[in-house]
């Protein structure tokens, strides 16, 4: 990984409210687990039922999230200062596009498009031949592996 990546991208201001939102989401997850566990049917046998562990885990998640939230609000939180992540967002959009294409045009074709897109984005169009060669060899290997070695159908 010694190749220079994309040019330094402008990053936003640290968003201090994000950790608070994150701990609130965790707290919500804990409460949802408790609520979900309470509506699960009780067992008719000696078993404690399918809701007992989710209930206990939900209580633990809610309690620990509450501690994190209080610590964050009182300025003793451990969470990092978050900055806007433009590069991460672009990569994520490419990844989501790749996943969305798989059922439409198949895994091999979408893999070729995704890999070419990532390499052209990071390296620029100047190295398109290298990118194309790597992509074709990789896609060929994956096709051969699934078709002849694991004998598994590809989407």
């Amino acid at each position, binding site marked *: 990984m010694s190749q220079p990546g994309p040019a330094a991208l402008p990053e936003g201001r640290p968003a201090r409210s994000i950790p608070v939102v994150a701990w609130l989401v965790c707290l919500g997850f804990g409460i949802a687990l408790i609520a979900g566990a309470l509506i699960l049917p009780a067992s008719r046998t000696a078993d404690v039922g399918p809701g007992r562990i989710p209930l206990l885990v939900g209580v633990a998640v809610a309690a620990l999230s509450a501690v994190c939230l209080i610590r964050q609000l009182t300025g003793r939180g451990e969470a990092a200062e978050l900055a806007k992540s433009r590069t991460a967002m672009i990569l994520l959009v490419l990844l989501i596009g790749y996943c969305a294409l798989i059922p439409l045009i198949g895994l091999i074709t979408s893999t070729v498009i995704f*890999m070419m897109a990532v390499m052209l984005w990071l390296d620029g169009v100047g190295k398109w031949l290298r990118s194309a060669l790597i992509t074709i060899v990789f896609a060929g290997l994956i096709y051969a592996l699934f078709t002849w070695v694991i004998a598994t159908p590809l989407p």
Partner: protein
Amino acid sequence: MLEGIIAGSAAVFSLSGFLYLIIGMLIGILVGVLPGVGPSLGMALLIPFTYNMVPADAMILLISVYVGAEYGGSITSILIAVPGNGAAAATVLDGYPMAKQGKAALALEISLTASCVGGVLGGICLLLFLQPLAGMALRFGPPAYFAVSILALSAVGALGGKSPILGLLSAAIGLGIATIGVDPITSVERFTFGLPELDEGIPAMVAIIGLFAVAEMIDALQQKASGGLAIAAETVGRTFLSLKQWRELLPSMFRGSLVGVGTGILPGLGSTVGSWIAYDVERRVSKTPEQFGKGAPAGVSGPEAANNSAVGGQLIPLLALGLPSSPSTAVLASALILHGLQPGPALMLNAPSVAYGLIVTVIFSVAVLYVMGNTMVPFWARVARVPESIMVAVVLALCIIGAYSVRNLVFDIWLAVGFGVLGYAMKLLRLPVAPMVLSLVIFELVEGNFRRSLMIARGNYSIFISDPLSASFLTLSALVILWPFASKYFRKLRQAKA
């Protein structure tokens, strides 16, 4: 026993036995490298090819695949933060930072050496303690299994990151996510939202791919864009460990091997839990625990010794009692049955060349692994020098393909991406990922034994205290959780006095 060892050695050191050992090791390493294809799947795929083989040769081939795959899983853990299998996930924590510091070859060599030491010690333990250790494993009832799982979670959670609260929260969220799926006891759907893909729950391997590899690639690229990531140039030169490195790391390899054998014997724990416990043990005994997660060599040697020594440990209940204690030994058991052999004590009497051949292969295959692994280390280390653009494109494509291959479901691809986003968010929030991964891996062990214990005790929770083994493990868990708070309190007290 001596006659058995001689018969087993004759099978392994025959021309065909040796050939199958080498072929199996090569296949095993490759199987280990592929994300989503673990040793059990690798062995299962090979079983049809063993139909026409002599049973001893078939077992030599399968055991070599098993040993090779346990090592091979660490290669991608170190180079690209994609564990080849669950047992290699703990290796990512320090192996990958070592690769980022330009020490990929060293990390790979430590992993190989530790795997070999673990393999030899696991094999020796298998030979020496076959009977007594199998008896000890039988004393573990559901309460003890539940308690030991809680101990593993507490240890990794409380001591996993900078803050024990964050580590425990990560473990708890992991358990919460793992509750998704059809309840195996009552067949009630839990949090599946009517999606049939969630009936079997969240596959741990898919979550591991997302949490480690996808998140790592997003983070690496983002840090590079922010100018915060500097990857040192790789130095591929002499790869063998120096005498000083041997002296420093041998104790961790011994400790890891003991943990691996112990968790290998106990059904359900296996090499994955063993490698996490070994990682935690190393961090606790280390004089520089703050280095863990940043490229501590002992963070690679401990877990790697554990996952390979677990091979020997897992064969103990299979050979002594006929009980497979993990998916891999279940595959081995089915292979034995396919060849007309019943796993268990009778195997020693009826087919000593097969039974002792298995044990001799576990020990001797290590020598083949060491030679083969060392030949390949410079090649693997060059992978770390691949340009970032190619690395990101190839690794993310591998993640997606690996996630799909776990159950052949497109749904799992989305799961992997979702876990990737979650893993990246956790990195930003400084929530450690390891406790969540462990929770996802051992959830069935936790819940199954919790409920079985309460069924035995008719709902009385005191069973967890009245069972001496369970009480001991739960006390240890409480101490592990309280330790970071207590040590912080005493440190403050000492500072106040000073």
